[in-house]
């Protein structure tokens, strides 16, 4: 527990600084957009309904979806600008996060500014015209000062939303306090999840308190409150983002998808690179499809993927050749078509497999999926949420004619629990999952090769194809990690007792396979 909090605190400066930069940028941009828009809207009341409706509609898009949507949009835009001006727009990380959060920040400020400006007493408006103020003078000397408390309330709402929603930037590759939450959810590290939630909430709370002080100052025309509130915010922002100034830009970016094994392997690669004296940053929690695109476009320099995934999803192949043939063809294709280097397999496979408790398998006399198919009509399948929609499941079902009595989808933790307590008989598992050994499960053979191989391979970005440091650091990992070692490392992170953080688990894995720096 203490170790977990220490581990969380160690990365706090990095996560917090990036979170603050993102939130502040989105809020400032949101202000710059919504304020003039509100003034234009107030001057032309015909605009009011359409503008506010569009802004409200944007608000109803779920945060995660909005962030995810900006990735393909920016990718397409980048393709256009690259062709037209040779200018590549980064589609991952800061930019899509900023764009999505800015859109979110707009509505509360817009709505409150419009409400504040239209809510001014008609008598006061008439007096302002009567004393001889121009439209601009009325706006600056009367309308904005009088609407300021309402506008500030909107800024407050916006700030709290933005800080909260910024945690969702993690899956599109922008580091934020959400890294705690997403990596914690994947590795079932509840200390991390809680830490991330508390940190984001505390940040939002402090900012809200200070903005409330400014709001009261604006309402009571108390300059001291305004200045002290703003001063705390300004000093806080500078303090929070200071790690960004001191730290030099990372030379290498190692990517990771969003599950335990990926976090551990990314840490392991990063540790080896650091041992070579390189500066490394991690970009963790990437969506499966996003990771490869991020690598081929150079947003990340290296990450681990799986041959079967690349074979079907990137190459679009449906056949399942033997392991060596697939690897050779994949390596060739990647280099030729995408300029991506397949440095080599790590030595273990993380495939979709079907697993039973050992005692149950012996009881039923099941060893292979063929055996299973004969008894499936009396058995219940538990699957992770993704599995039932994946091509692997379709292939298995077709090849073996699998028809279960019942099929339930679970989140991974509960799926294993359902298996151990007997609610289901068979589960979809990952072959490198630590719980296979820990829960005493057996993995069924796939004699018809319905599911392709999922050998873990290290991929290098096109621009890093001949990078000596990268190759030197990562080469020793090729062929070095046996599935038992990987399972042990995964289990150290996934288990509830004596839990390890990914960095700790990576160090232990490195020592276990004899490549520790």
């Amino acid at each position, binding site marked *: 527990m203490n170790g977990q909090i220490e581990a969380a605190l160690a990365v706090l400066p990095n996560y917090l600084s990036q979170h603050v930069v993102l939130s502040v940028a989105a809020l400032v941009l949101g202000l710059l957009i919504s304020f003039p828009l509100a003034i234009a809207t107030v001057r032309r009341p015909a605009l009011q309904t359409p503008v506010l409706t569009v802004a409200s509609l944007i608000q109803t898009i779920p945060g995660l979806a909005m962030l995810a949507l900006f990735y393909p949009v920016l990718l397409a835009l980048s393709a256009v600008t690259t062709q037209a001006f040779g200018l590549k727009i980064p589609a991952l990380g800061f930019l899509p996060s900023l764009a999505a959060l800015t859109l979110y920040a707009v509505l509360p400020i817009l709505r409150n500014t419009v409400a504040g400006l239209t809510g001014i007493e008609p008598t006061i408006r008439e*007096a*302002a*015209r*009567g004393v001889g103020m*121009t*439209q601009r003078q009325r706006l600056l000397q009367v309308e904005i000062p009088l609407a300021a408390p309402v506008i500030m309330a909107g800024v407050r709402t916006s700030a709290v939303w933005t800080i909260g929603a910024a945690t969702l930037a993690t899956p599109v590759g922008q580091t934020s306090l959400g890294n705690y939450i997403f990596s914690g959810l994947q590795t079932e590290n509840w200390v991390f999840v809680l830490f991330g939630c508390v940190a984001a909430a505390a940040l939002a709370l402090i900012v809200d308190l200070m903005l409330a002080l400014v709001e009261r100052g604006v309402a009571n025309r108390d300059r001291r409150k305004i200045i002290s509130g703003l001063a705390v915010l300004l000093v806080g922002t500078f303090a929070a983002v200071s790690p960004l100034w001191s730290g030099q830009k990372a030379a290498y970016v190692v990517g990771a998808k969003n599950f335990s094994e990926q976090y551990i392997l990314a840490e392991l690669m990063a540790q080896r690179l650091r041992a070579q004296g390189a500066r490394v940053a991690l970009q963790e929690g990437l969506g499966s499809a996003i990771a490869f695109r991020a690598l081929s476009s150079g947003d990340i320099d290296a990450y681990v993927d799986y041959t079967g995934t690349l074979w079907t999803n990137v190459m679009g192949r449906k056949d399942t050749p033997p392991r060596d043939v697939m690897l050779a063809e994949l390596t060739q294709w990647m280099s030729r078509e995408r300029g991506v280097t397949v440095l080599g397999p790590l030595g273990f496979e993380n495939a979709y497999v079907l697993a039973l408790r050992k005692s149950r398998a012996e009881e039923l006399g099941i060893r292979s999926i063929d055996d299973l198919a004969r008894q499936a009509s009396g058995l219940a399948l538990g699957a992770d949420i993704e599995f039932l929609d994946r091509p692997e499941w379709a292939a298995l079902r077709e090849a073996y004619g699998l028809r279960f009595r019942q099929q339930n989808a679970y989140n991974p933790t509960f799926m294993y629990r359902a298996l151990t307590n007997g609610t289901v008989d068979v589960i979809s598992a990952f072959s490198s999952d630590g719980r296979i050994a820990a829960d005493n499960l057996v993995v069924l053979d796939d004699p018809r090769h319905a599911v392709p191989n999922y050998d873990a391979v290290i991929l290098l970005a096109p621009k890093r194809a001949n990078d000596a440091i990268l190759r030197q650091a990562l080469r020793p990992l090729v062929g070095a990690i046996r599935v038992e070692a990987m399972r042990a490392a995964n289990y150290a992170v996934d288990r509830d007792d004596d839990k390890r953080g990914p960095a700790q688990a990576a160090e232990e894995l490195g020592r276990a396979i004899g490549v520790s720096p």
Partner: protein
Amino acid sequence: MTQVQDSTRTERREGAETPLIQLDHISISFDGGRSRAVDDVSLAVARGTFVSLVGESGSGKTSLLKTINGLVIPFSGHVNIEGRPIPPADHDDDIAAFRRGIGYVIQDVGLFPHMSVAENIAVTPRLLRWPESRVIERVKSLIAMVGLPEDYATRAPAMLSGGQKQRVGVARALAAEPKIVLMDEPFGALDPLTRDTLGRAYRDLHERFGLTTIMVTHDMQEAALLSDRIVVMQAGRVICDDTPRALLTQAPRPEVSDLLNLPRRQAERIRAMIEPEADPR
């Protein structure tokens, strides 16, 4: 200099002959001409006059008043001030500059709640970029002139009574030394005593500064006591236009004389309560 220009100047100098405010065939409509709030009204106001526009709600008196500072644009007709048309409404800078030269007092006062009493009074002089020392001096003397204690300068409008607010409203209207003051039911929301005091105080200022005042009111008594000339409006038209004295002695229409005689009859009824032998009716 040509003779033509000379003759124009001569005409201007004879202020009594050129009205300061000239309304020509003013019609006002708020529905694009289908109905008329003011229907073909012409009015000339000489320099130094205190004119009351009297009439019921909806008679068009307020709309007519607001054409003079361009807050209402007539559907047809012309407004001339000192022989010059007022700037068009879409020339924001010009119309704003023009309004700085006209004092404007409204029933709900409309003090800017985020400004102190002094800042409210100083608004127009500051818009005119008076030197700050002159602004401060002017504010100080106006606070005294409208009968407010000196230390009220720093108060917020919310801390004032209704009568005090309107004193500030009058001071704000007079701050930039206008020649013309427009007042829309200025004392309408005040209790009768404050109303009387404030009305008389304003009339003194009107004399002292040689102002030309147009006041909208529905109170014939107030109009009679304060003004030099009463213009009675009904359904968008002027139904009579004369001095208070002339209207009191020989009102041309029964509805006008009824209105004018009401205070006298009320006074007689009150006297009857004190001296029962006198017949009230």
